[in-house]
């Protein structure tokens, strides 16, 4: 038998109005898949990655804005340390007095030596006391 002897016919059939309804069913299937798109909320992703990342970012921001040390210079931090503590620290180190003096930049130290500044302020000794000290150490008043 030859193939040409057979009438070419589609023997299959479809349910009534199948092709009228198919586009709507395809659209429904596409709409159902849309939540998986790029901008949709993926709960698995949210729990595993986004939430921990957000928590970490908030912690970093909290410490960044709340840390009082962040904007302070070394000088201002040292100023908060009591003088006795500083002396006690320096006594325990191997730094000599000469090394400390050498490290001081005298040219840039802003000292106010104007007349209004009482250099002897704090001593507050009267003339009688001064004279007795001078006598005690045998200092000739003319030398001064």
């Amino acid at each position, binding site marked *: 038998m030859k193939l040409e002897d057979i009438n070419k016919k589609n023997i299959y059939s*479809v349910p009534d109005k199948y092709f009228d309804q*198919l586009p709507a069913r395809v*659209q429904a299937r*596409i709409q159902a898949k849309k939540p998986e798109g790029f901008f949709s909320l993926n709960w698995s992703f949210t729990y595993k990655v986004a939430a921990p990342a957000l928590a970490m970012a908030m912690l970093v921001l909290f410490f960044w804005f709340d840390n009082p040390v962040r904007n302070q210079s070394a000088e201002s931090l040292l100023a908060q340390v009591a003088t006795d503590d500083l002396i006690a620290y320096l006594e325990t180190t191997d730094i000599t007095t000469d090394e400390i003096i050498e490290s001081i930049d005298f040219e840039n130290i802003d000292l106010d030596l104007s007349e209004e500044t009482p250099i002897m302020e704090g001593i507050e000794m009267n003339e009688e006391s001064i004279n007795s000290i001078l006598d005690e150490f045998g200092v000739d008043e003319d030398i001064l």
Partner: protein
Amino acid sequence: MEDKDLLFKLRDPDSLNYGFNLLVRKYQQKVYWHIRKMVIDHDDADDLTQEVFVKVWKNISSFREDSQLFTWIYRIATNECLNFLKKKRSRFFLPIHDIAHELSGRLDSDPNLDGDKIQLKLQKALLTLPDKQRLVFNMKYFEEMKYEEMSEITDTSVGALKASYHHAVKKIEEFLSND
């Protein structure tokens, strides 16, 4: 509507849904029948047809106009069919003859078939062919496609398609004469 007009609508976000609806209406029957002749069962064909258009929707932005829209859609449909049959065979560890037997059984049990004995016999003869050869035969014999179009869809040379088709015709005629 021409494919170029369809593509114009699909490129515009405002008319994308409308354009896609037109595309489905234009190609749904060709795609469905292309699939149905391969998988035989209506429910399988229905599911695969919808899947083909979902894939078209997902990938329409990457469609390049160096091929025709209909050959691109046919290529997706063809791959869906072949993958479906391959999965079916591997799932049940069935050789090709058992798949043919199962599909032939569906032909016998389908009350909605509209054909005489010889046409039913032709369909059974087709089921004895390997999937790709059956696909080539369907496209040439039933859908009357040009070999060049088939070549683009199947990514096979025209010469190989011609040889495959003529070999299929010979096997079918033997089946019809002997059985």
